[in-house]
């Protein structure tokens, strides 16, 4: 340790890994740490499993209480969701449709912009523009969603009002734009990794055959990376569907769904945020509805993530 000077740590580690004393005749203590290490790592894995099971269990438990009062068929077919009405109705379709509208709008922004940004970063950008653009995308990824919601409510909507005078103070359009920019880094950064993984030989073959750059990209590089790009888009969809703060702040709390992007709407996530802020008493049907909507979001997010992992891995 002392003889190694500034490299002391490294020198010792080499000596340990290759040293005969540590290898051929393990001390008793070493054997103990060996057994202990395996157990500790197993315990960590078990603990992670327990945490996941706890989330699943508590959602299932409360959803079961909900379904003892509302049948699953009612949940899936009733056309309105009015938990606070005198005769509350629990049809989840309006909430799901609102979430789908936000996802579609956000995808319309993020898919083209994200993919074009990824292609630009991978194949067109010079070193300096590349650094600046990567920093910008990384910054967008670091911005908390509540900040996007704030900007959508206070700046995007007023700006849109100049172009679309009929737009409401809470509207889906502004929320879609903000959610789109929020998921843009997911599409751009993951698509870029997929493009970067395309073998160089493939591009060189295309170039050698005399194809123009754009042709090599559209016919060889992008198809070769298509699975990774699709996985990136699936993950972006999952993030958009689970986004809560932007829709709560900018899209409002209108239970009725008109399909008009200039009006407000209420997504699955916004229902959870707004209902829990009114602090419903435990044991009420409203509280159980909260957990049921959360269970639906859980299943959706879990399934899309599984799909994205499967698309990304399968060859």
């Amino acid at each position, binding site marked *: 340790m002392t003889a190694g000077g500034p490299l002391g740590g490294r020198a010792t580690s080499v000596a*340990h*890994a290759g040293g*005969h004393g*540590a*290898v*051929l005749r393990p001390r008793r203590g070493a054997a103990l*740490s060996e057994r202990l*290490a395996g157990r500790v*790592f*197993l*315990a*960590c*894995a078990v603990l*992670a499993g327990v945490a*996941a099971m*706890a*989330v699943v269990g*508590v959602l299932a438990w*409360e959803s079961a209480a909900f379904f003892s009062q509302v049948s699953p068929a009612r949940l899936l077919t009733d056309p309105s969701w009015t938990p606070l009405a005198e005769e509350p109705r629990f049809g989840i379709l309006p909430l799901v449709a609102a979430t789908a509208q936000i996802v579609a709008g956000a995808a319309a922004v993020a898919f083209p*912009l*994200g*993919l*074009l*940004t990824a*292609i*630009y970063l991978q194949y*067109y950008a010079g070193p300096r523009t590349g650094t600046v*653009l990567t920093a*910008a995308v990384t910054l*967008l990824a*670091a*911005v*908390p*969603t*509540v900040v996007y919601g*704030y*900007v959508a409510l*206070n700046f995007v909507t007023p700006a849109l009002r100049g172009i679309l005078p009929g737009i409401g103070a809470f509207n889906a359009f502004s929320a879609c734009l903000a959610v789109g*920019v929020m998921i*843009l880094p997911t599409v751009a950064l993951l698509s870029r990794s997929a493009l970067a993984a395309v073998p160089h030989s493939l591009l060189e073959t295309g170039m050698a055959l005399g194809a*123009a*750059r754009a042709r090599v990209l559209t016919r060889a590089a992008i198809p070769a990376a298509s699975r990774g790009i699709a996985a990136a888009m699936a993950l972006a969809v*999952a993030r958009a*569907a689970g986004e*809560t703060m932007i829709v*709560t702040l900018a899209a409002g709390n209108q239970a009725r769904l008109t399909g008009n992007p200039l009006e407000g709407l209420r997504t699955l*996530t916004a229902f*959870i945020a707004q209902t*829990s*802020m009114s602090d419903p008493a*435990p044991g009420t049907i409203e509280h159980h509805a909260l*957990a049921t909507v*959360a269970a639906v*979001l*859980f299943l959706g*997010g*879990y399934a*899309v993530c*599984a799909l994205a*992992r499967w698309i990304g891995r399968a060859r």
Partner: protein
Amino acid sequence: MTPLATRDLLGTACRLGAALTLTAAIALLGVLLVQALGVVDVGFLAGAPSRFASRAGVGPAIAGTLWLAVLTAALSFPVGIGAAVYFEEYAPRNRLAGLAGSALANMAGVPPVVFGVAGLALFVRGMGLGPTILAAGLTLAMLALPTVLVTSRTALREVPRGVRDAASALGATRWQVIRRQVLPAAGPGIVTGLTLALTRTVGAAAPLLVLGAPAFVTHAPRTPGDILTALPTQAFTWSTRTEADFAALAAGTAVTLLVLLLTVNLGALVLRRRLR
């Protein structure tokens, strides 16, 4: 090249797309900075929320967010990295272990707000913690755990097989191989994943709102048992106010949070350089 380049429609589209992305980032940052400029000063950073916008500050919220960051890291990092080492280095290569690993990895797709609902039932009500820093820290740790696990596993998998084989061939035991070779080699990748998990969860407002974070907390939390307050929820509370003064406070809070998150990123960058 030039005659071809002039016909490069894709190139033009890519330049346009990249320019729009850059514009969005600059516009977002610009709007926030202009709004926050007149707000963020020592009084704002040290002061407490107030009915009067001119006197309001984010001192308690900063303390709350720092507490949450420490708790989330302390609870999720060891467990997540430990589980990743188990699945990559110890778990038997069979179907059951593969399924368990996938089941945990897919938790990363579950929206943050869902963890809020679970945390409300488990910690706030079930364990009777109430809407405290500790309840929120436990909830955020559950939220961060899948990301820590997935990114750490990726980092461990990227360590070349040869490193393990070489160390084993020299007689190192499994734990020696992991401690001396694999973990140091995977270090920079693991740090990247930890940073991502920490900044995502500490910036999340939705789970904290669901846990019942009060809108108005004037005392900085001193222990994890104290009442929950944090920068994201403070930004939300002020965002919902219609007065322009409070909108500026929300921007100031947002910028404070963003600076905090970027500091974490910068710290990680330095740490990564040192580990490499």
